[in-house]
């Protein structure tokens, strides 16, 4: 039996079966990212000889309708799959009332009770708000953005998480005026050298950054679709305040686990009180033996869809299929789908230094110029590749980082290689595919320790 219920966002957004990824995450995000890339391609196409007179502009409603239609088809397919496997689907909010009993409340408020011998909690997270005046009334989050009925217009994105930067990226790519307000660092938790490069690229593409500020007040100046909002922000370093006027304020300041109102305290399941996350053992089991957890709510595990899916699949096989296989959380690849994508697998440089010590590492890196960028006159010192190797383990690759077009597609293959124990020598022995961006990893020679300049010369 599956209990799924989406509590509407403060702006009233809700969605069907499939979770965050399908409805308000990966899927619509990647499609909007693609929409923005196509806009860029249109611009570049003239250099490749395409001639057209029509003014090219973007229709937000056309895009969101197409995306929402696809999401609906996915919601349907999940309902079908559950039916095919004989899984009962209940659209109700579940809470524990006793160790083996839950109360399910549907949207009409009707309560039903169910008992089971095993439970899996996969309630995920929802966007965090700032806790300032006007935030819930006037701001939107990723919960609302992908089904927004009108174009957001001039947008302030608060937060430089990957959610914030990806959204800022595609909104700017669609032609909107975008500002990103950052309290401290970009892409916290990611390799900071790469994060800064991502930020620089976004700035070059016209996105304004307000660093070291945080909003303190949001006021509505005009109603509308979109309306006009006034934002007052305070510096994190002093008394300075700034003001700005925007059509839309998109909050991307973190996500909160949905673990506090599901009755866990009634049955003794321990959660991290500060973060709300649930600590589990290597079998995804909580401190209460018949209660398991998977997904974004797990403490210390990457918040990624494929991680949740894999953990869930293997858990099911262990519980009912006699398997002993555990989920492997090492070297999980991911990609930030900003207009120029950042793909990575393994450790950030900071983490690698912490774990292995700087002198035991060799970092190979290079800037590269995608062939497709030559004709369009894009910069030759933007795209960047870096691998971090453990000198005392055959120069084992412990960190892979790529800033470049299609980084998402490229990184997947290298993640498999790392699972197979990729070393620098193996990379050297592999012949590159030419001309691609990906081949840069087969010819990396310059190390950071050598101090040599990697700047590409123009011609």
């Amino acid at each position: 039996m599956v209990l799924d219920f989406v509590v509407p966002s403060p702006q009233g957004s809700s969605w069907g079966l499939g979770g965050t990824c399908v409805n308000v995450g990966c899927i619509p995000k990647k499609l909007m990212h693609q929409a923005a890339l196509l806009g860029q391609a249109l611009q570049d196409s003239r250099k490749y000889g395409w001639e057209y007179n029509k003014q090219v502009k973007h229709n937000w409603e056309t895009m969101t309708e197409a995306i929402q239609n696809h999401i609906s088809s996915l919601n349907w397919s999940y309902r079908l799959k559950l039916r095919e496997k004989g899984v009962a689907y209940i659209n109700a909010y579940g809470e524990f009332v006793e160790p083996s009993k839950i109360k399910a409340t549907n949207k009409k408020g009707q309560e039903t009770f169910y008992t089971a011998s095993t439970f899996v909690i996969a309630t995920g997270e929802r966007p965090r708000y700032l806790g300032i005046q006007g935030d819930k009334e006037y701001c939107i989050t990723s919960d609302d953005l992908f089904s927004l009925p009108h174009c957001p217009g001039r947008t302030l994105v608060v937060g430089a998480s990957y959610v914030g930067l990806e959204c800022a990226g595609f909104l700017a790519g669609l032609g909107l005026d975008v500002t990103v307000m950052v309290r401290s660092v970009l892409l916290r938790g990611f390799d900071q050298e790469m994060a800064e490069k991502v930020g620089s690229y976004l700035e070059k593409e016209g996105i304004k950054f307000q660093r070291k500020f945080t909003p303190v007040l949001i006021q509505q100046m005009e109603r509308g679709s979109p309306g006009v909002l006034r934002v007052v922000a305070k510096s994190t370093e002093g008394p300075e305040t700034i003001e700005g006027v925007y059509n839309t304020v998109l909050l991307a300041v973190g996500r909160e686990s949905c673990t506090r109102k599901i009755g866990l305290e009634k049955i003794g399941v321990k959660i991290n009180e500060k973060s709300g996350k649930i600590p589990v053992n290597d079998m995804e089991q909580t401190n209460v033996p018949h209660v398991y957890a998977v997904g974004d709510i797990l403490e210390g595990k990457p918040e990624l869809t494929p991680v949740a899916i894999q953990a869930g699949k293997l858990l099911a096989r262990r519980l009912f299929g006699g398997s002993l296989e555990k989920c492997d959380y090492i070297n999980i690849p991911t990609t930030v789908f900003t207009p120029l994508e950042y793909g990575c697998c393994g450790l950030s440089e900071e983490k690698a230094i912490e774990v292995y010590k700087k002198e035991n590492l060799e970092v190979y890196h290079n800037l590269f110029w995608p062939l497709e960028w030559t004709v369009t006159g894009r910069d030759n010192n933007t795209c960047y590749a870096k691998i971090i190797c453990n000198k005392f383990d055959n120069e084992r690759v412990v960190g892979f980082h790529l800033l470049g077009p299609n980084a998402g597609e490229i990184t997947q293959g290298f993640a498999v290689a790392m699972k197979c124990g990729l070393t620098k020598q193996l990379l050297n022995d592999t012949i590159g595919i030419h001309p691609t961006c990906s081949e840069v990893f087969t010819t990396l020679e310059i190390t950071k320790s050598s101090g040599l300049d990697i700047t590409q010369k123009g011609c």
Partner: protein
Amino acid sequence: AQRLLLRRFLTSVIPRKPPQGGWTSLTSRTLQTPQYNPGGLTETFICSATFNVQDGPDFQDRVVNSETPVVDFHAQWCGPCKILGPRLEKMVAKQHGKVVMAKVNTDDHTDLAMYEVSAVPTVLAIKNGDVADKFVGIKEEDQLETFLKKLIG
């Protein structure tokens, strides 16, 4: 088996209130003029022969209890549905009121749809409370004509 399926899903979505004459036998009644009739009389029969199902009781009323209903399960995100829909409406209208078509949006009425449908578009022909005929996907006008004529009998 199909009748049991139809009965089962109707009883699950509709509050328990046995209709006049019960489920099992469709008492032979004259074709009811559906209440839904936007804009009064029209030249074509399209408006009175085709309607959108509002909810479970509506389905029971105007589909199960109707003489010869055809049910078009469709979705907003389904390309073929957009082609089949108007085509079906046209062919149903040509039958001059002998067939009534109910349209069920599978996103709005997923519970209802889940019992009968896997893919969209799915079209059911219901006779005497049973699923008498069914097809999935797009059909040409002459194929639709045959399908409808078979139902009318």
